[in-house]
């Protein structure tokens, strides 16, 4: 019931978002038709495109046409790539999705343990080091890490590839999911899998560092807060080993705040990947969106924002479900209010 209700909300959210982005994208300066056909094209040619794309009509009429097409699974034509926007997104989305997944894995696998260790050894040099690292991660933009990482691992040490998703000479595995690592594993192509993984390391780490640092700080402070609670003092007095207390009694209530944060982080990674994609020449969704804005490619802008909105909303639903599972009190409050 909860999921159905949330999915119902999701439809309304996306509808509202589509109206908002449709209006905002039309406010971007520049004539999209002129941008599409080039600066020297005659006014007649520009006007022909305006009519074909309905740019000559009132904004609500334009929205009507766009919405009607969208209901039929058509997000319109990109005036830059000359391809249907949905087809473009199908091509570029998996690249960013794969990048986001690996950034996400990195931030969970490193951020949460770092927070736990900091809390466990609070006010020691270990804690100080963890806090320093997480502070650096929070204040340093991802593109700085990307450039530094590239200079160290690609330029000086030459141990990692500098760009793209796959090395020259390797052939992309037949598309199943669009995620090269997964597709390569499904087809048992270990060479391609490892090569794709090598290409993912730097961009994923750069992209995940901010989230990793944030999660480490939240995990640490959350555990630290809970450490002084009565129930923890009680279990400690029974002589239960500290490791058991940490993972059985402390981590579960402390992790709720982190999980809520992580949901937002996934969507944020997708939308903030632009600079990292640019630096590593990653053929992704964020870069496609930025090009769309630069070329006033209205259909592409609307399509990108709509997909991003859907990812944000769906990841939030998943997070709510996880939090619901982790914290029974939330579930109980909901039941009582119903």
């Amino acid at each position: 019931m909860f999921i159905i209700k949330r999915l119902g909300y999701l439809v309304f959210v996306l509808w509202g978002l589509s109206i908002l982005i449709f209006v905002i994208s039309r406010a971007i300066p520049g004539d999209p038709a002129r941008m599409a056909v080039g600066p020297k094209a005659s006014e007649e040619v520009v006007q022909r495109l305006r009519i074909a794309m309905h740019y000559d009509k009132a904004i609500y009429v334009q929205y009507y046409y766009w919405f009607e097409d969208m209901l039929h699974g058509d997000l319109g034509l990109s005036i830059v790539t000359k391809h249907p926007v949905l087809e473009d997104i199908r091509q570029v989305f998996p690249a960013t999705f794969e990048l986001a997944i690996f950034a996400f894995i990195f931030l969970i696998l490193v951020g949460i343990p770092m927070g736990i260790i900091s809390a466990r050894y609070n006010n020691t040099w270990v804690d100080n080091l963890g806090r320093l690292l997480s502070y650096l991660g929070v204040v340093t933009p991802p593109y700085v890490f990307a450039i530094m990482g590239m200079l160290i691992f690609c330029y000086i040490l030459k141990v990692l590839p500098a760009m793209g998703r796959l090395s020259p000479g390797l052939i992309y595995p037949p598309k199943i999911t669009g995620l090269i690592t997964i597709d390569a594993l499904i087809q048992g192509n270990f060479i391609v899998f490892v090569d794709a993984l090598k290409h993912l390391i730097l961009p994923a780490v750069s992209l995940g560092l901010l989230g990793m640092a944030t999660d480490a700080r939240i995990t640490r402070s959350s555990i630290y807060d809970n450490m002084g609670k009565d129930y923890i003092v009680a279990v400690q007095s029974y002589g239960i080993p500290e490791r058991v207390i940490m993972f059985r009694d402390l981590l579960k209530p402390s992790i709720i705040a982190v999980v809520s944060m992580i949901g937002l982080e996934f969507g944020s990674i997708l939308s903030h990947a632009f600079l990292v994609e640019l630096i590593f020449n990653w053929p992704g969704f964020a870069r496609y969106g930025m090009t769309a804005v630069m070329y006033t490619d209205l259909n592409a802008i609307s399509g990108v924002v709509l997909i991003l909105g859907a990812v944000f909303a769906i990841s939030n639903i998943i997070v709510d479900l996880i939090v619901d599972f982790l914290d029974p009190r939330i579930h109980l409050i909901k039941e009582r209010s119903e």
Partner: protein
Amino acid sequence: MLNGRAKILLIILCMVGILIGISGISVASSIVRYNSDWPVLIDPAVAIWCQGQTAVVNLYDALVITDTESNIISHVAKSWDVSSDGLTFTFYLRPGIKFHDGSELTAEDVKFSMDRLLTMGQGFAFIWSGKIQETEVVDKYTVVFHMKNTFGPLLSTLPSFFIVNKDLVMANIKKPGIYGDMGDYGEEYVSSYDVGSGAYMIKEYKRAEHLLMEKNPNYFLDISSAPDEFKMIGSSEPALLKTLMARRELEMTNRWLTSETLESLAKIEGVEIARWLFSNMDYICMNTKKPPLDDVHVRKALAWAFDYDMAVKLTAGSVQARGPVPLTVPGSDPNCFQYHRDLERAKMELKQSKYYGHFDEYPIECVWAVNIFKQKQSMLLMANAAEIGLTVNVKESAWTFLASLCASIETTPHLYPVTSSAYYPDALPLLQRYHSIRSGTIDSGEWLLDPVLDKMIEDAACIVNENERYAEYTKITRYIIDLCPTIFLAETPDSRAYQAAYIDWPVTKGEVIPSYKYDNCIRFIKVYPEKREELLKK
């Protein structure tokens, strides 16, 4: 036995070792990799920016091309005739030229390509639109362009006209589309697939990542010494370029890099900077219909006040411009008047202005977009104007916004710096900037709207005899300079970093083909893989 932590550490070390160790991926022994901004539009009827043109000159063939001395030489057309009245151009095609799908290139393909280009009206269509009345197929290897009026530089324009495979495009037309019976005229298909006959053909096109081309084994010319592959990489990020250059994974850069980036690339062993003057011109447009710039004396005052020596120093290898046409372009006037910095004369001009004493009431705005050079030029102008008592406010803008501002007289800024170049080896395109029909575009924000000038340009364009046409260009050039609608800053070079140690690139030896983007024609380049290997071993 290892404990748990040691096992985990061992597993991690093994994984890192595997990641670093696995390699042995082979690349073509002879490849040229070039960085390009994105998107790369590969349809010859659409491509107009240099990234698209770079792809197109390698994927497609033109009827004729030019040599390094601007002479028109045969290519797909082995010869041609021009009728005595200059209204009919007959081209005789070489038999046996094959498209990449194996079909033969014939006169039908030439007609289809021109019809498609003119109907779509995009890219370089403006060059021939309204000039070519009809394309006629006489026989399989003979095609005729019937002109509406004489058009003097027609042959010089044709290196920018590329031939597509009619049958392949027709088989991939999508209906309905905005071109009526022709649907989308194959626009969607040609934007992703190769329908050409050029020296290179598409091997892999990963949009926003790279465009990889391989040598056409059936090319009609001998290209045995040309590189096996050409790859356009979709990024201009300086850290990436530096890394790729140092790892010998990039052979040449595009022309849009800052001097700082070029200098840092030049520090890499074996990498050099190639600079050559082509047809690029930096200038500052003055909106001649907006007070106080509607007064020629104010415009001349700014032209006298500008510090050209400083402007030239902003871009290495540039020289002060002399009039609206770079001296490297056929039809330019080497003897035309050239402004220099003279503050006294600038002040004298201001005194003759009807706005003298009231300049405070007419704030002047200079808007810059695109890159740091434009900002520097704007700031320099602001400083120079202040020296003669004029206040210029400098603002930054997005290029798209500036382009939309230039659509009307009222919104076009007083001043803005811009770069332009001749699309074909003739002065006409740079003089046509001042024709009323071009007003309202970002290249032509002067808004002269001068019927006398329009007529002079139209008449000159019709003159078939080259010397007579150039004489008319000289008159037009002097007429424009007298109106002072533009501050002609500098002829700027194409500046590129390239792997001088292992590629032989004719343009670096001065062998520049003065047709738009033929400097990126890869079949003229030679690569020495063994020298690359030597560098990698160091």
